[in-house]
């Protein structure tokens, strides 16, 4: 198993958000996590990527057979964990090109490899830009500065394509996207799917899952995954609404 989350409890400022979350992801799989606001979906993403302030009070995050809860965010990233941010931040004065080159070389250094050659890097940039349909002028701009909502999300997928992670979490990548941008983002993800990686797609809506078809759908409620199933579960959820889940939980 690539990622195995066992009975994970996570608190922020002493308040428990994740209350015993379990999730197993194998290579080659796409999992969708759905659920209402404030149930802990983004907290799960933050705990996996090692964000400061998210205290793991009990449980384990096993990735490639190792508990990663004590590793710093950059080590986890260099081990192949990627997060497509729900709210990508601006870094004024740092071009996407410079940012990506720094990131790729950090990854290479971690693996004991030489920095990427200029030609190779440019070629890779061109290739991946096409994948998510972003313009060259965008990669010369500062990271996310003045980007539209769609451009920010495309930029996240572009970075994912550049860094070629083993395990990627897409945190509400569909929010704020029009249907065309949504298709572009979905196509980008689909093109990257392989037997050697896995994705967790966090979303409110079934809409994205029409384009990124998941192998499994999980419903999160009050800090736990309360229901799991196939693609059909997303449709059922869309039809019956989240109240159906509440009742499901309350009835045990």
């Amino acid at each position: 198993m690539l990622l195995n989350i066992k009975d994970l409890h996570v608190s922020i400022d002493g308040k428990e958000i994740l209350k015993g979350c379990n999730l197993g992801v194998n290579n080659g799989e796409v999992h969708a996590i759905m659920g209402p606001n404030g149930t802990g979906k983004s907290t799960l993403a933050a705990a996996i990527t090692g964000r400061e302030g998210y205290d793991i009070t009990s449980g384990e995050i096993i990735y490639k057979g190792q508990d990663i809860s004590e590793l710093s965010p950059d080590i986890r990233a260099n081990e192949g964990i990627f997060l497509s941010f729900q709210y990508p931040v601006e870094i004024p004065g740092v071009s996407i090109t410079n940012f990506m080159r720094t990131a790729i070389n950090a990854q290479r250094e971690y693996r004991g490899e030489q920095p990427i050659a200029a030609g190779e890097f440019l070629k890779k940039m061109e290739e991946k830009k096409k994948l998510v349909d972003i313009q060259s002028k965008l990669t010369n701009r500062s990271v996310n500065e003045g980007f539209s909502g769609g451009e920010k999300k495309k930029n996240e997928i572009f970075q994912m394509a550049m860094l070629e992670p083993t395990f990627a979490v897409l945190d509400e990548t569909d929010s704020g996207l029009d249907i065309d941008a949504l298709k572009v983002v979905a196509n980008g993800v689909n093109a990257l799917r392989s037997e050697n990686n896995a994705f967790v797609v966090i979303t409110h809506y079934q809409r994205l899952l029409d384009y990124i078809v998941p192998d499994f759908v999980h419903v999160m409620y009050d800090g736990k995954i309360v229901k799991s199933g196939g693609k059909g579960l997303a449709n059922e959820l869309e039809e019956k609404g989240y109240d159906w889940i509440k009742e499901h939980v309350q009835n045990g």
Partner: protein
Amino acid sequence: MSKFINFAVLFIFILNRNQMKEEKENENILDEVTTSEYKYGFYTDIETETAPKGLNEDTIRFISKKKNEPEWLLEFRLKAFRYWQTIEEPNWALLNHPPIDYQDIIYYAAPKQKKQAESLDEVDPELLETFNKLGISLEEQKMLTGVAVDAVVDSVSVKTTFQDTLAKHGIIFCSFSEAVQDHPELVREYLGTVVPHTDNYFAALNSAVFSDGSFCYIPKGVRCPIELSTYFRINAANTGQFERTLLVADEGAYVSYLEGCTAPQRDENQLHAAIVEIITHDDAEVKYSTVQNWYPGDKDGKGGIYNFVTKRGLCKGNNSKISWTQVETGSAITWKYPSCTLLGDNSIGEFYSVAVTNNYQQADTGTKMIHIGKNTRSTIISKGISAGKSNNSYRGLVRVSKKAENARNFSQCDSLLLGDKCGAHTFPYIKNSNSTSVVEHEATTSKISEDQLFYCQQRGIDTEKSIGLIVNGYAKEVLNKLPMEFAVEAQKLLAITLEGSVG
């Protein structure tokens, strides 16, 4: 049409390639972040000929005699010294340091050399080694970069390169002492016209005891074909450095001048009080860039250079322009306000500054833009970065006189804080006496956000490198104003200076 596209593609390729080059250097820079000790902390043992400790008229006569100066220059010095004795050290800056004992300083130290070197072979090999350690080997500079270097070690100019190339254009670029001997009429005409000895306490001190420096004159209509560069370096213990630079651009002339500074590590605080004077005549332009990396003291605030510098430019002619760009990463104390007096109509003054302070460093720096001529314009971009327990102040004055019709100023002063034990302060003064003028001031204070750091870390970039990346991005607007070779050095210094500031 297709030809046009081909050109466009080629152009983009070149752009990308340049960017790649820059980025490649960026990474090397970040690699160097791991070396935290002051990189230039070595000491070269060159036999020095020194003046006795302390300051009185005899010291001044000693210096003047050593330098074989004409009588008028000795008088200039003595006048300044007599004035200096009547005034007090200023205390208005937001700086804190123990009192300076001016009698405990050696005012003149010159590397002993038997005769003036004609080629690099004749220069003291140990001295050349010093330059090699700094990465500014004269030979290398000469052959590879096409930058003429007037290297100043402990106040005396050792060797000036590219004199021949410059001479062809009628450009004079030499040590101040040489200029006094070879071009006394030019020196006498301009010396003290922009920074009179009455300008301030440290200017008076410098005028009395200055030991050497650089002199540059660009004749009418000449565009200097190379970047002129001077490296200053403090070497012997307990010697103040009082260099003096005089730069004159005659009608329609242009020059880009670079000044870089490093000093070896010492425990005693060393005083540095330099003067730079720039004069631009009609349609002339001077671009003056500084990277200042003197020893900032150790992590506990022990040692370091006291840097009290007076830099003033006079846009004397119509349509003339003076542009100051500075990257200040070193010194325990920085007191520095490069200024422009915009006397000529339509003249332009610019000030671009990045000042970084870490540990116990203190910087009080900014500019003065004095608008006197009509349609004069000035731009001030200041980026302060404070870390550790340091204090970083911007202090600036924009003055528009009654006659300065349609004067324009734009000021932007940004402060970036790393951690919660440092200070950032902004003291903008605006004195506007002309109703047709427009003066704009913008200021921001920000912190490197947790979100920005995490975003970089999530892409695999460690904390130190992330900070380097974010800070260089923040300062980019100013770094872009530097000549290429300086921009790279400056980026390195920003990262090195801030090493260990978060953690």
